[in-house]
């Protein structure tokens, strides 16, 4: 059964991961970009959709789904053959994948936020929060670098949406000033990610939404 899907997203936000997943499974969907700098995620129109004012927000036949990790799992169950995650042979392996999603959303994402938008974690001087964020990101980036030493992707020989999620977190930390240049494995993997057709299409879709938004203002 096909659902009517609409994704609310924002430029460079973690919705890049959601967009990539939608592209990867081949879903037909509408999308709307919110201009966070103008506070569109806090405007009454959007709060009527998601009272928490967060993206990603996915409407499935009008019903709201939130949280990147939950949306990715839902898409995987709707499109089991698309390969968002590698097939698992045991419930323990499945739980470990789910654990990776939680690691990203509760670790990587808030850590990268401390580097890129430290003011979200403090009312005071941002420098010590960015410094701490840099330590936290260093810890997880090292784990990624180590894992990529012997393999192309997080789970081995095949791409999964976890790679896109990790890619997004790394790039966001970099936008915030985190220096990735010392990590050679990550540099190669990043290039592979950026050549992946699903991410390429997702970024094109994001760009198109941004253009639409700009022409609205013009």
């Amino acid at each position: 059964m096909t659902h009517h899907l609409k994704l609310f997203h924002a430029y460079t936000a973690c919705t890049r991961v959601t967009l990539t997943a939608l592209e990867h499974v081949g879903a037909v969907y509408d999308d709307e970009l919110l201009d966070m700098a103008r506070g569109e995620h806090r405007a009454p129109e959007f709060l009527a959709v998601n009272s928490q004012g967060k993206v990603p927000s996915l409407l499935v036949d009008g019903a709201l789904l939130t949280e990147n990790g939950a949306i990715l799992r839902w898409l995987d169950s709707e499109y089991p053959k698309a390969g968002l995650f590698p097939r698992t042979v045991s419930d323990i392996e499945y739980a470990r994948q789910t654990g990776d999603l939680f690691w990203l959303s509760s670790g990587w994402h808030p850590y990268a936020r401390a580097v890129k938008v430290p003011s979200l974690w403090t009312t005071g001087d941002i420098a010590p929060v960015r410094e701490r964020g840099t330590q936290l990101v260093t810890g997880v980036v090292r784990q990624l670098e180590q894992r990529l030493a012997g393999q192309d992707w997080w789970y081995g020989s095949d791409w999964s949406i976890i790679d896109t999620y990790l890619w997004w977190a790394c790039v966001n930390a970099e936008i915030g000033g985190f220096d990735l240049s010392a990590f050679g494995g990550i540099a190669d993997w990043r290039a592979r990610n950026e050549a992946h057709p699903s991410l390429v299409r997702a970024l094109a879709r994001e760009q198109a939404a941004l253009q639409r938004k700009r022409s609205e203002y013009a």
Partner: protein
Amino acid sequence: MAELRLYHQPGGCSRVTLAALEHVGAAYEDRLVDLASGEQHSAEFLAINPRGKIPALVVDGELIAENAAILLWIHHRWPDAGLLPASSGLDATRQLADLFWLSSFWHPTVRAIRMPIRWTTGAPEPVQERGSLLLAEPLARMDRLLCGQTWWFGESWSICDVYFCWICGIAEGGGYPLEGMKGIVLHRQRTMAHPAFRQAILREQAALARGQE
């Protein structure tokens, strides 16, 4: 039956995991990890969980990390125990989203209040203040919700109640005042009186007593 071993710290977020294991009646071993002395960074513990975090559950020698991932695994192994209300469909996805919300918003935010030095190398106060600001609106919303319903999901208890109760305890421990929030105060009392929570506390106490021998 699988062999289970939980690594935990009394009072830590692993209290939620303990409550889940107790609720389903699982047989498991438990091991203390002393976060205060940095045992999570020891070579021995990193060999078990390279991410250096508790809770960590070892199932027949294989690690499952991340609290919510462990909770979901327990729910699927003991589907009739009532740890969570849904097992499939859009409701299960919503429930999963709630777990992501607890783990990625609530937990890091109360950490800012209770353990601000996890988010800064500088003065703790502005991080605590920011944490309190981030919490205010969602807490007020939860308070209103819990004034009108008994549990997180409405009529029946679930492990999300324990998770949220633990989160509120951490916020309060960090100095966030909860007294005025009737819905939350009463919800905490109900949750702490529930057998799963009480057994988790007993298990923590037993582990501490063992540790002192």
